[in-house]
């Protein structure tokens, strides 16, 4: 591997070409490379010399820059809703809703759930709601009303 660089170490030696001798030594902290340098400053003898430098390993490098996730479109058929708070996505499960009463109002509310896939509805900007139970003393009547409504 060959490349160009500026100053290398504390010796203040400039060079025009550096040959990395491909002797990278991977230890947990990084890679140590042996570099063959040729001085380039005027007045310096052009005698190649060898030095080393250490590159931090990717794992030991500084934490990568934070990137905002790209906006995602919610598709309830494929995955749960992703709620965005200041752009940070988080997988959340639907809130489980129980309806007490299956009369005129209750049956219509239940219909809203039952007409949706997986009995889930998603309010704008909020978590999904999933119907898990309907309580009514008259089970048969409630079932008939809910079926009629749906």
């Amino acid at each position: 591997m060959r490349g160009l660089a500026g100053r290398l170490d504390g010796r203040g030696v400039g060079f025009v070409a550096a040959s990395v001798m491909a002797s990278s030594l991977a230890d947990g902290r990084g890679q140590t490379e042996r570099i063959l340098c040729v001085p380039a400053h005027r007045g310096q003898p052009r005698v190649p010399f060898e030095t080393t430098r250490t590159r931090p390993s990717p794992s030991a490098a500084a934490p990568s820059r934070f990137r905002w996730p790209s906006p995602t479109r919610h598709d309830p058929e494929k995955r749960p809703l992703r709620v965005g708070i200041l752009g940070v996505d988080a997988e959340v499960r639907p809130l489980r809703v129980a309806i007490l009463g299956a009369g005129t109002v209750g049956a219509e509310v239940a219909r809203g759930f039952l007409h949706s896939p997986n009995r889930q509805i998603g309010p704008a900007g909020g978590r999904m709601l999933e119907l898990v139970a309907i309580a009514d003393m008259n089970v048969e009547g409630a079932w008939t009303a809910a079926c009629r409504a749906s």
Partner: protein
Amino acid sequence: MPRELIVPDATAVATREDVDIVVELLGGSEPARSLIIAALQAGKPVVTANKHVLAHHGAELEQVARASGMALRYEASVCGGTPVLDRLPEDWPPTTSGACEASSTAAPTSS
């Protein structure tokens, strides 16, 4: 519709572990009041469209909700779909109860 969704024991449903939110749509005073209290004390937020129970037991239910740290939310439509309950406590606090009860009795005849 799966039939096993419908169960007769409302108290058990209101306090079930796998329920996050209870929506009370029974109407009337009892057993709606008891069920709302049971759900709040079981740590479930409650949403109700029951104007009657709010008109008669609103203060008590609010106290239970505050004590249990759970939310008690309500809204209902009267007069052809006008949501009013959210505005009443702010605009006419002294007459909230009477207005709620009036809207409660007017709702069936208006729709």
